[in-house]
């Protein structure tokens, strides 16, 4: 039988506010355990939550960016359950009335666009962390993360393959970073995802029974976990069994999913509106003020790059993958004349390779956009060749000086004096009689050999164009 997969994702994006969603404690990552948990985060008797308005503005920003309905009145509710890292015994979340309603995102699969519906996005607080290591038979609790604002983005079950799920996840990841509402760091857990996966015979309308996959915190794991789960579910059905509704945990080491709890074991969360927090009311003025802070969004930027800089779809995609990279590229372009394509090659090629090698972000690049532009201008005005430019770039990366200083210091200036080049050519031809004969006998590929020899003799500094032209003339008359 042919099977169809149905996937919906729940993304938890930590909002990058300075303080927590209901307290004034810092949200900075990596502090000593429990040093960033104030009386409110510890849920001492008598404490009360106070809404951080910045978190609300960030949620609105997301809602506006996906063209969703922003609810002017939303309600915080308590989700009740016991766990040591949940200090109050309930999580403050939004249940019936979330801040962001129906919206959508467009993903690109094999050159085709596909719309993925967003059911809702709601605000809630993160829990702390239970630490099971280092406590011999006991569990430690770190409440630094407790109360960090989260935006939970819930998609419709619109995806039909793990590939689509990953494309969607990447798209959300890109967007929240563009909006500067989440740093997107999956390793630190500031961007997490659960997947609801089910299968059904192709053509069937009703959904199959779904399993919720947890603990899939990298793009690669999302793809693998979903693939494995799909196989597992098909195996179960084809061998006569039934998929049960349950929560499953992905084990990236064993590359399997295992059952965490079944529907019967699931908590009754006893949601009810939090009496400590009045409904959150947003006026038009606030919403419009947030709208004004919306940056150019990734899709719009991509289209503009293609049009304005004459880039290919692919190049535009790479260069707009983050807002910082796009800004860097545009800054380079503003300093070079009519050579956006060359700039694109350098930014997505050499520069990106160096950044990757040292695991650096574009904002940490030791070569500024202005410096890279000067380098490209030296290629353009033929001071150096593209090949030499790579050496210069390496020196710039090592902070050895400005472009011109490096060229001067290392004597890398391109030889454009035709007399000098002619002299080198003559020497090369005189030293390689055999090859000259071969060329004359019609073996034209020997031409490349001569170019190489001349470049070698000039230590790469001879202008390649001139070398080509003069070599041809010389050989013709030789």
């Amino acid at each position, binding site marked *: 039988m042919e099977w169809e997969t149905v996937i919906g994702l729940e993304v938890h994006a930590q909002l990058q506010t300075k303080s927590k969603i209901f307290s004034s404690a810092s949200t900075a990552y990596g502090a000593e355990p429990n040093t960033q948990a104030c009386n409110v985060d510890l849920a001492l008797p008598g404490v009360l939550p106070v809404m951080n308005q910045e978190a609300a503005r960030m949620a609105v920003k997301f809602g506006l960016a996906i063209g969703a309905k922003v609810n002017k009145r939303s309600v915080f509710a308590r989700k009740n359950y016991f766990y040591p890292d949940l200090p109050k015994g309930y999580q403050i979340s939004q249940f019936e009335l979330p801040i962001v309603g129906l919206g959508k995102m467009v993903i690109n699969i094999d050159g085709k666009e596909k719309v993925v519906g967003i059911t809702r996005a709601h605000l809630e607080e993160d829990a702390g962390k239970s630490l099971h290591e280092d406590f011999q038979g006991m569990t430690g609790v770190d409440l630094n993360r407790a109360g960090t604002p989260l935006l939970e983005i819930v998609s419709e079950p619109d995806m039909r393959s793990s590939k689509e799920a990953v494309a969607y996840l990447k798209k959300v990841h890109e967007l929240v970073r563009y909006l500067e509402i989440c740093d997107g760091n999956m390793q630190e857990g500031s961007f997490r995802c659960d997947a609801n996966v089910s299968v059904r015979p192709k053509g069937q309308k009703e959904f199959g029974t779904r399993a919720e996959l947890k603990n899939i915190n990298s793009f690669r794991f999302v793809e693998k976990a979903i693939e494995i789960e799909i196989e597992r579910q098909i195996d179960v059905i084809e061998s006569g069994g039934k998929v049960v509704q349950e929560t499953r945990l992905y084990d990236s080491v064993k590359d399997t999913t295992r059952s965490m709890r079944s529907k019967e074991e699931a908590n009754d969360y*006893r949601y009810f509106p939090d009496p400590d927090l009045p409904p959150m009311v947003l006026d038009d003025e606030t919403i419009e003020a947030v709208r004004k802070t919306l940056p150019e969004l990734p899709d719009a930027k991509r289209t503009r790059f293609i049009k304005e800089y004459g880039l290919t779809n692919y190049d535009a995609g790479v260069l707009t993958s983050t807002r910082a990279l796009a800004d860097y590229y545009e800054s380079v372009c503003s300093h070079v004349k009519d050579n956006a394509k060359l700039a694109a090659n350098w930014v997505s090629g050499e520069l990106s390779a160096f950044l990757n090698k040292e695991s650096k972000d574009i904002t940490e690049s030791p070569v500024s956009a202005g410096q890279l532009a000067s380098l490209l201008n030296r290629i353009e005005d033929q001071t150096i060749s593209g090949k030499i430019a790579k050496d210069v770039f390496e020196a710039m990366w090592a902070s050895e000086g400005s472009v011109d200083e490096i060229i001067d210091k290392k004597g890398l200036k391109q030889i454009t004096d035709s007399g000098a080049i002619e002299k080198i050519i003559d020497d090369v031809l005189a030293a390689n009689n055999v090859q000259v004969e071969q060329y004359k006998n019609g073996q034209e590929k020997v031409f490349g050999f001569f170019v190489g020899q001349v470049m070698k003799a000039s230590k790469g500094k001879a202008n390649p164009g001139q070398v080509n032209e003069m070599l041809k003339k010389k050989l013709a008359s030789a």
Partner: protein
Amino acid sequence: MSHYHKTITELGADLQAGKVSSVELTQAYLDRLEKFKDLNAFITVDSVFALDQAKTADAQIKKGKNSALTGCPIAHKDIFCTDGLLTTCGSHMLANFVAPYDATVIKKFKDAGSVTLGKTNMDEFAMGSSNETSYYGVVKNPWDQDKVPGGSSGGSAVAVAARLAPAATGTDTGGSIRQPAALTGITGIKPSYGRVSRYGMIAFASSLDQGGIMTQTAEDAALLLGEMAGFDERDSTSVDQAVPDYVATLNDSLKGLKIGLPEEYFGEGLDDEVASVIEVALAEYKKLGAETVPISLPNSNLAVPCYYVLAPAEASSNLSRFDGVRYGHRAKEYTNLDDMYEKTRAEGFGAEVKRRIMIGAYALSAGYYDAYYLKAQQLRRLIANDFTEAFKKCDVIMGPVTPTTAFRMGDKTDDPVAMYLNDIYTIPVNLAGLPGMSIPAGFDKAGMPVGLHCIGQYFDEARILNVAHQYQQVTDWHQKIPPGFE
């Protein structure tokens, strides 16, 4: 020289005039509450802590940097978190809990220079109407020590009634200030919901809890409420509205005041002796120039069932934080996490608290939420609307605070519903978020005090304080001290 018969207003004047020092005054009260400790009004008294504050207050008075309250001793209900002092909330669960911070109410009193005399006994987590659910034992009513003082602010009520403290803070979720005030013959005010910050006040039912003050006189209540009230950025449910000078309007005339008398508050279940005391009090008001108008609060009979869904629902969630993980009681032996939770909570909570957690969890559970919680919310709106309609015809509403005077200890402990019905007149006021007072109005034949209930419009505490004060100018019920405590 004795001070204990004096009001806060009088003591404040004596302190400022140098007639007495705060240390002397504080010591005198400490001696007195030691003498009458059998009443069990206090859970924690730290004389060193109190006298330290008194010394500071005396220094402030000397420098002239004092307020009307500087140096005045005040007792605090053990529901308010106090930095450095035990805060038990009447529970075994918090028997060892010392808060690292002051509740906003405590901070305000501290800033005004008042002295914390001690922490008063209360029903466990404020759940009770007789102070019999306290882990620290029942509080005795000084008017008859076999009888209950009411609850949950029973310790505060007795402290003031027996003049062990000149005033005490309380909280009122369904009548916990007004009912014990009535049963012990003192003045108590529960302000409008949102008037006093709930920050640092251990939550029972968040949408109903409200801090207030228990005093000898309405004048003291006006002075102290002025100090407690006001917007607090730490409490999102507190209302950002200026606090009027409650003392300034105490002497406004009552001529033409329209007193609404809800027929539902004078019907079946009301004790005849209580009814006649109220009748006499109303006659007094007519002499002061007020007139009475009949009104109706048709949904009052729904208030108790509505309350006993909503309050336990909120409580079941509010009390989840007492899990043995971070503070408070933790069972000594357990096999795993769930076992630790179960044993800790089984040992830490008393029967009434457990009963309400169970009721609340049930009312919120899947499949029952609509029938209980949602329905109760709808009723709550109807009950609030009754008051809105009634206040179109009158300025204040009066009636009894309780259907009977104080009952005997143990009389209602086996019948929770009978106990709950003691709050039949006070609960609707909490559901509507209105201010209410209990004003001493006389005694029954057995010599037990009766409280007159005065309910005001939303945020109109000034009016009910004025109405109470004028009555206290022509009566002396509020000055009566229980025999043996004079």
